Structure formats: C-alpha cells, structure tokens
C-alpha cells in the first residue's frame, strides 16, 4: 500500500484540550500539502479538522480529561481524516448535525455544517458511552487539461 508516490499518513494521539487544536489543523494541512491541494482547499481542510477536534474538546469528556486520536491519510484519491474519541458519544447524530443546533447561546452550532461544506464526504459513527468517530474525505480535483482547438 505504501508504495511511495503520494501515499502517506500519520496517527496522533493527544489530550482533548483546546491548546491542541493548532497542532491538529497544522498537522493535517501539512500532510494535505503534499498533494496538489490549493491554498483555498487547505484553509477549508483546516477548518473542517478544527471543528471535528473542537467537538471532542467541548463535548466528549464532560467528566474530565480524555484523549483523542487524529489520523490523516493521503493517496491518489485525496485526503481522509479520522477523528475519534472514547467519550460520552452523541445520542442523536441527526440533531447534532443540524445547522444552528447548539445548547449554548455562545455557540453557533455550525461545526458540522462547516465539516459538510468543506469536505466532500462526512461520516459520523457514535455509540453513547463508548465514543464517536468522524471520518471526512476531501477529493483531489485535478485541474482540467485545456483542450486543443
């Protein structure tokens, strides 16, 4: 599988602390930057990763500190990012993914909206009491070759 070329990946495990948001988004952007993503794409990737990790930081571990795992992989198809935790889980994923859903007036409830908008594919798998995994993909769109004529 790792035949060189554009294949690469990393796995990072870290405390679910807001201080680590910068590490998470920069690490993924640095890996994605090995593909031909545009700067605009990289900004979008940073926001999507940031929102997934923020959800873990804010919601996953109300009882105390916990860990999160950030995995990122690039290949010919593009980028896949997986953010997982072993926290309380999400009881109603459909509700959590709705725009402007938030239990806190200081929050926009736009986290999932940004993830959906900026990535091509978003999957959320959660088991209450066991944790949540968010898998996001962004395809690499090759610039069209100008046709002669």
């Amino acid at each position, binding site marked *: 599988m790792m035949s060189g070329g554009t294949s690469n990946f990393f796995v990072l495990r870290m405390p679910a602390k807001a201080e680590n948001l910068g590490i998470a988004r920069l690490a993924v952007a640095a890996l994605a930057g090995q593909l031909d993503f545009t700067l*605009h794409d990289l900004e979008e990737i940073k*926001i999507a990763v940031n929102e997934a990790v*923020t959800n873990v*930081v804010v919601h996953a571990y109300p009882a105390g500190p916990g860990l999160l795992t950030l995995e990122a992989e690039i290949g010919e198809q593009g980028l896949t990012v997986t953010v997982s935790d072993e926290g309380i889980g999400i009881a109603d994923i459909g509700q959590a993914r709705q725009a402007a859903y938030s239990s*806190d007036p200081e929050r926009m*409830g*736009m986290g999932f909206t940004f993830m959906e908008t900026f990535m091509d594919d978003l999957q959320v798998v959660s088991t209450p009491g066991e944790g949540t995994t968010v898998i996001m993909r962004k395809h690499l769109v090759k610039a069209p070759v100008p046709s002669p004529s």
Partner: protein
Amino acid sequence: MQIFEERAGGTCIMRLVGELDEHTAADFRLRADGAIDSGCRHLILVLKDLRFVDSSGLGVLMGRYRRIVEHGGQVSLVAPPPHIRALLEMAGIPRLMPLYRSQRQALMGGVRQGGGR
C-alpha cells in the same frame, strides 16, 4: 492570539492578530466584555491580521454582538482576509455586522465594503 485595543470616544477598536479558535475565544470574550463593561457602545474589530477563525470564534463574536446591540450599539468588522470573509458570509454575519475596508471608514460609518470582492 494577540489583541490590541484603542479607544475613540464611545467606540472601542480591537485588532485581533493570530488565530481565534476554541482555545483563544475565551480571552477574546473577556477582553471584549471588559471593553463593553467599561462603557464601549460600539465595537470595531480589525480582522486584517486574523489568520484563522472557527465556529467557536464566530459564536463568541455573536455573543458580543448581542450585548452591544442590546445597548443600541453596533459591531463593525474591518478588512477580513478572503477565507475568513467567506466563513463570515456563510454564517450570515455581514447582515448583522457591516464590513469595512479600513478602520477609518468604519469609524466614519461610511462607505461599506460592498458585495463585490
């Protein structure tokens, strides 16, 4: 993130430098609430040196907007970089907080940055 404050009468000008995320949003909230509590009626946020903002940052921005509007004031935004402006627009924020090209224009309350680029 660094925050630089200036004051012009009842208007507070805050220049945000760096990244506004879940980690730094609390600091911004404290500083902005301090400004509001000390009598700032209007808030001008200079965003030209803001490199990153996320939904946590936008949430805190909306919270401060609600406080300012409650007292009849206005929050204005100055010169967000294009990727940040796109995010603000996605969240519908320019309908509530006008965008200006420069701090001077925001202070005069004139010439808003229009819908174009």
